[in-house]
């Protein structure tokens, strides 16, 4: 079966406008990213801020234009379609935004916010049909029906995010991109929302692309995980497999285990993600990597398969393609 979403060599470069005495600079937000999402899967994308995960989400939904590459959605390249041809397709792929406070218009009631997608798509409904649709959507995300007349400011963070999810589901999409949907919520509410998303996926046969900075959460929720660093994929990891790339390991070690009997020294990597301007010639992680060798700063490691679903881009930990007899020469 063809994957629902196939991304090939997708890149986006932002350039800052040069000016008097100022050089034009290029920022590579996403470079050469390729992956597939199978129907019914949850693909996780993890990385720290500035790694390009939100840009990737926006590129996949073509909310911004790619610089190069293809995004095949159900066999159609949505990266190269003219803008006018995209709009009718948008009902098949929707997004839930990170900040429910700013993604819902404060002057709309929940009812109006949920009816917006239908207006955008020019879908005419009778009043009765609209009411039953709203009721169905609110029930879907376990909100009381009376909430339809509330305004955004009357809801709690968790309720707002449920409205955001209901709005994304309004047009029965096949793919939902979730951009850190729980980042601004309490842990208790985060767990509620994740449980809801899981249930909706099973019931409505959805496919998710789930973006987060929390590796433990992504490992809990997703079938496959893309780990990004400075615009590139450094590892593609199936659920339940141990990470190989030193960056993924560092992310995993940075998680705080809720067990005081398993205390450990906390950081194993230092520093922060470098700027995306002036891309290094070698591996972008070289400055923070505990295993860095001379070759790491000279050439860019390519993403290579370890097994069918697992791939890693690392010179040191990656698969060795050199025949055994020459290995000592390296």
């Amino acid at each position, binding site marked *: 079966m063809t994957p629902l979403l196939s991304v090939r060599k997708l890149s986006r470069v932002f350039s800052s406008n040069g000016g008097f005495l100022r050089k034009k600079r290029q920022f590579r937000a996403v470079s050469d990213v390729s992956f597939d999402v199978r129907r019914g899967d949850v693909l996780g994308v993890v990385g720290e801020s500035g790694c390009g995960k939100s840009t990737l989400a926006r590129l996949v939904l073509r909310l911004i234009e790619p610089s190069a590459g293809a995004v095949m959605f159900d066999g159609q390249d949505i990266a190269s379609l003219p803008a006018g041809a995209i709009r009718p397709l948008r009902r098949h792929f929707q997004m839930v935004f990170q900040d429910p406070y700013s993604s819902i218009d404060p002057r709309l009631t929940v009812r109006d916010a949920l009816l917006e997608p239908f207006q955008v798509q020019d879908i005419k409904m009778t009043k009765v049909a609209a009411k039953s649709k709203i009721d169905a959507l609110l029930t879907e995300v376990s909100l009381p029906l009376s909430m339809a007349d509330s305004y955004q400011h009357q809801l709690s963070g968790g309720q707002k995010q449920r409205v955001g999810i209901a709005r994304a589901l309004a047009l029965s999409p096949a793919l939902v991109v979730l951009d850190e949907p729980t980042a601004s919520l309490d*842990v208790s509410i985060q767990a509620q929302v994740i449980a809801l998303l899981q249930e909706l996926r099973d019931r409505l046969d959805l496919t998710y692309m789930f973006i987060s900075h929390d590796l433990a959460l992504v490992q809990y929720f997703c079938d496959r995980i893309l780990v990004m660093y400075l615009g590139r994929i450094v590892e593609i990891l199936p659920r339940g497999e141990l990470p190989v790339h030193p960056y993924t390991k560092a*992310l995993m070690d940075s998680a705080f285990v809720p067990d*005081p009997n398993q205390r450990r020294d906390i950081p194993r990597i230092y520093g*922060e993600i470098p700027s995306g301007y002036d891309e290094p010639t070698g591996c972008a992680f070289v400055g923070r990597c505990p295993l860095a060798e001379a070759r790491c700063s000279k050439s860019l490691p390519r993403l290579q398969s370890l097994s069918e679903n697992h791939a890693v881009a690392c010179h040191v930990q990656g698969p060795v393609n050199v025949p055994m007899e020459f290995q000592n020469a390296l």
Partner: protein
Amino acid sequence: MLLSVEDLKIGFGLLEPLVGVDLGVDAGEILGLVGESGSGKSMTAMSIMGMLPLMGGRIKQGRIVFDGLDLTTINEGSYRKLRGGRIALITQNPMTSLDPVVRVGRQIDQASQLHLGLDRKEAKSRTIDLMDRMRIPSPQHAYDLFPHQLSGGLRQRIVIAMALAGDPDLLIADEPTTALDVTVQAQIIQLLVELVRDRGLGLILITHDMGVIAQTCDRVAVMYCGRVVEYGPVARLFDDPRHPYTRALISCIPQLGMAPGTLTGIPGMVPSSQNLPKGCRFHPRCDSVLDNCRLREPPMKTEDGRSVACFLHEGGQR
């Protein structure tokens, strides 16, 4: 005890956002305050910092004893000598605690000039020393930068250096890493832990993350709706959580190797202080409610070093 809060009750008009808060922290010790947003963690910090009058609140009952001195009895002038000097606060968003138009080094200087009476030159060398200890790369250069030129992690290090500049005995860190990336969060938490262990500071660490608590604290106070519902040493609290709310909070953390569908969260949400439920404040969300819970508020019971406010443990029975 370096600081002890005894039976604290505060009021904003008729509202009482904190009731019966009892906790303590010793030098060289980390006390964790944990709970969802709206549970009163930050309000507790504000009470200790003496900021309530500025916010329109007041202390209705109880004492806050810091190093033998009852802070509820002193005036604003004496409080000013303590604040930033012997008691320092680190807030969640470093950008709001830094002045955007003053070089970061000068901002750290100000605290040591004010509280330690250093002249400008002494203050600068102390600042550079502090920045170096916060592992800020090339402190001589960073001294002259403005906050917007630094990354989030570096800004938070500057704020910590600022808090330490007055040589405090007690540090209150209110969600110091919530705005930061995971790898940077781990570095900042590690830095705070080292400060406590090496310099014998007392630290009150406010967070909603039970993972951070488990990895760093010595003692924990779990707060819900303005009350401390469970209080005790960290290992015993995690091994045998007595209050259903503590148990629920721990189970909200996704862990490696958890089976899908096992993370359920806590149903409902924290009620607002205008609209508190009758009886135990947690009973509408609790999974083991007794009849008594709907009628009366459970009192805090202390038993061999740990306390819990729950009818399930009334009189020592499980």
